[in-house]
């Protein structure tokens, strides 16, 4: 097992662990905005898995796809979190 494999496994472990942590946070929190706080933190898992794919595959087509996917998720994640919080807030304000 080379150094490259070890780095890739560590990155996969951290990425999957972070995503499982996000799922547990979304599952266990009581309020919708608390759940959203955990859902917004999934960028760490995405970046780690993308880095693992790039480390394992090197400069290749799958690495390019991983970079594109990560870039899109890194940009769209905060936008989605903001839009969701805004919709929940407006929905609650309309009900009160």
């Amino acid at each position: 097992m080379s150094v490259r494999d070890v780095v890739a496994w560590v990155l996969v472990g951290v990425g999957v662990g972070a995503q499982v942590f996000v799922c547990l946070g979304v599952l266990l929190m009581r309020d919708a905005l608390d759940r959203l706080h955990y859902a917004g933190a999934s960028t760490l898992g995405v970046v780690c898995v993308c880095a693992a794919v790039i480390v394992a595959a090197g400069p290749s087509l799958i690495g390019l796809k991983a970079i594109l996917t990560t870039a899109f998720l890194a940009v769209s994640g905060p936008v989605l979190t903001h839009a969701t919080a805004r919709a929940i807030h407006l929905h609650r304000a309309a009900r009160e």
Partner: protein
Amino acid sequence: MNGWLWGATVLVAAFVPLAVLCARLPAPEGIVAVEAAGVDAVLALLLIAQGTNRQPFGDLALVLAVVSFIGAIAYLRFVEAFREE
């Protein structure tokens, strides 16, 4: 079955609580679970693409990332436009 596919298995298993949560939460709040499940699925597809050496799964991950974002934004716009006045 290599480490990539084990990681994908863990992420797919994480779908189950998110699906239960989405079914149990009231309408505008369940979208949080759907968003988390979308990112989860994208990561699982990337891991499957690398673990099986099949490039098309990488395309699926990219398309799913875009489609889940558009779907969530469309739903949120609907919730905002038709909220109770």
